[in-house]
């Protein structure tokens, strides 16, 4: 009996909270329900994976229409599109990693804190001195290593320590930011290695390097999830850990790897933010965990694990980034935006649950 991820083992049928002992009866009932409603073509379309992404495309287009209507060419200009993408890049990279962890049946609340710690560690005087003496890649290496190490601690605690993901990563949230404050003495550390900033701040074909990084991470993530054994295992582990274990997957180690992967994504995001601000600071990445989880969830990934898409997450990130942009362009307050964001999340999850209950029954 593996109790490595106890919170997910019982949740293979998320839409039926009081999962009956006789699954078969429920299935038959649900199937009957489904045939009765089959005429609802919209829901049927939305149920397919392409259909779900189509829903996100429609939502994003709708936002763009609102943006264009309220702000005109201030919204539609290329410069503005690039502003949105640069803003989205940091959260985007984190969200791709988060997608894997959530599909694998976990959750990570510590991403913002890990990002802060990585940004601080890769900009300490010692790191920068070493970077100046050797090569700026040292800073990149430090940020990725810090991210991976934090992810490893999270993963080990969860898999082998039996701590539920929520608590383990909550602890990491507190300690990583605390450590970042200790290392930086709560001061902002300024990057003095011009080669580092020049590399990350460059533009290729008029598009910022961070946007390419986001794109590369998204593509690698897509291939990893959809075209490799690692991806199929992730889905299996999240969908039904017990079945995955019986199928010969090392569920515990695989879970560790997922958190390490997310940690590395946090390291990459830290590098983007360090280059964007030319600073490392313990205040970087506040509330990024919530932003990333929100983007993943509205992208159609089930919080209970076992299903999700990278494309959906990318759209989720873009939807929130565009929303923020439309609000900034219209001088609207962030508080209103938060309210709307909450409504969007609830709407997306409600829709998802309806679709999930139908999918599970087929």
């Amino acid at each position, binding site marked *: 009996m593996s109790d490595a991820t106890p919170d997910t083992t019982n949740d293979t049928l998320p839409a039926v909270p009081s999962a009956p002992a006789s699954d078969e009866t429920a299935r038959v009932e649900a199937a009957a329900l489904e045939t009765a409603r089959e005429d609802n073509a919209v829901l049927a379309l939305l149920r397919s994976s392409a259909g779900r992404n189509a829903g996100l495309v429609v939502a994003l287009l709708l936002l763009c229409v609102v943006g264009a209507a309220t702000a005109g060419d*201030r919204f539609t*200009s290329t*410069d*503005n599109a690039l*502003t*949105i993408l*640069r*803003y989205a890049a*940091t*959260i985007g990279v984190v969200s791709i990693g988060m997608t894997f962890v959530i599909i694998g049946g976990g959750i990570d609340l510590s991403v913002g804190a890990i990002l802060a710690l990585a940004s601080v560690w890769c900009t300490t005087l010692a790191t920068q001195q070493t970077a100046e003496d050797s090569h700026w890649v040292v800073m990149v290496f430090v940020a990725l290593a810090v991210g991976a190490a934090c992810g490893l601690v999270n993963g080990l605690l969860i898999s082998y320590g039996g701590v539920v993901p929520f608590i383990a990563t909550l602890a990491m949230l507190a300690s990583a930011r605390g450590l970042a404050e200790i290392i930086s*003495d*709560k*001061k*902002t550390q*300024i990057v003095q290695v011009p080669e580092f*900033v020049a590399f990350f*701040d460059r533009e290729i074909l008029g598009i910022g390097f961070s946007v390419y990084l986001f794109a590369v991470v998204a593509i690698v993530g897509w291939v990893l999830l959809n075209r490799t054994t690692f991806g199929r295992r992730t889905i299996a582990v999240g969908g039904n850990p017990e079945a995955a274990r019986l199928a010969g997957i090392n569920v515990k180690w695989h879970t560790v790897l997922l958190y390490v992967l997310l940690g590395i994504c946090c390291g990459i995001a830290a590098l983007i*933010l360090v280059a*964007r*601000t*030319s*600073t490392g*600071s313990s*205040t*970087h990445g*506040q*509330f990024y965990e919530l932003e990333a989880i929100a983007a993943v969830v509205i992208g159609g990934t089930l919080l209970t694990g076992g299903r999700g898409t990278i494309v959906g997450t990318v759209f989720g990130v873009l939807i929130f980034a565009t929303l*923020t*942009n439309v*609000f*900034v*362009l219209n*001088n*609207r*307050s*962030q*508080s209103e*935006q938060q309210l709307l964001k909450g409504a969007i999340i609830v709407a997306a999850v409600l829709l998802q649950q309806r679709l999930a209950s139908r999918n599970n029954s087929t």
Partner: protein
Amino acid sequence: MKFQPIRTKVGTTLVAGLSVVALAACTGNEPDKDKADLGGGTSQADNGSNDEAGDKVVIGFSAPAADHGWMGSITQSAQDIAAQYDDVELRVADGTNDVNLQISQVETFINDKVDAIVLLPFDGAAMTPVALKAMDAGIPVINVDREFDDPNAARVTILGDNYGMGVSAGQFVCDNLDGKTDAVVAEIAGIDSLPLTQDRSQGFEDALSECGQDVDNRVAADFTVEGGEEAAGNLLQAAPKIDFLWNHDDDQGVGVLAAIKNANRDEFVMIGGAGSANAMRDIQADNTVLKATVIYPSTQAADGIKLARLLVQAKSLSDLVEVEVPRTVQLYAPVVTKDNVDQFIDTAFES
């Protein structure tokens, strides 16, 4: 019978709807107070004066989240002053403590080709690259309060005087010694790791040493009411008798005063910092230990708006001989007492 459930639903919806309306009516929090008069404005401008309406100026403004009274007043007074000028269009990006978002806000201003940007950064160093980008694009940046780490990133910098606050508070103590040679002086600082707190404490120490005094008890809080209460509680325990107490920040001062009241202490004179309207009302009423406060103007962003307007309209500061707007303006940190409180209370912020 068939329609019963629907009717119930309508009823529920109605109740829910009414509740929402009722709740919405209860969310108002604004005191019905006339807007502070910050002076200036196009409506009463003399011909040929700087205030006379000129070419239209579009100014982008961004500041951190208004999570304490002083910061709230920064944005509010910037909006108030902009409203007084017919020729100023202010675009306010809502306050944020996320540098990624604040950078994106400034980028939006650059895309919009605004005439000037007034920026109080959440983190001066972190906002330097985007400010440089704005300057490169030919948009003058007015840096308020938290300095960039590159002087080329701003055309004008407006600063309060943290060291001067400490000096003013220290001089007030020296002036009120009444011949005492060994007064017990206590200090409640803000967040200790911030350079601004270190500057304030240094100024206080330097001024006290001029009259042969020093700080006997020092604790640090964190600019919040709870933090002030806790720090003051500890301090009052540690020091059974105090002659003078300087508290760096009036927002945390609300907690400090609560702790003093709880401890039934009134043997000393307290000096505040930053200059909130609450503190000034206490000074005016003269019924607490708080007898003075040292100002750290919350209207500096409003001054930023005014200077941005002059800059874009190619006007000069009319009281200076120099024809260009100065590079740096550092505001003074005066002491407010019962005698001169009327002069300051109108522009003070509510904490």
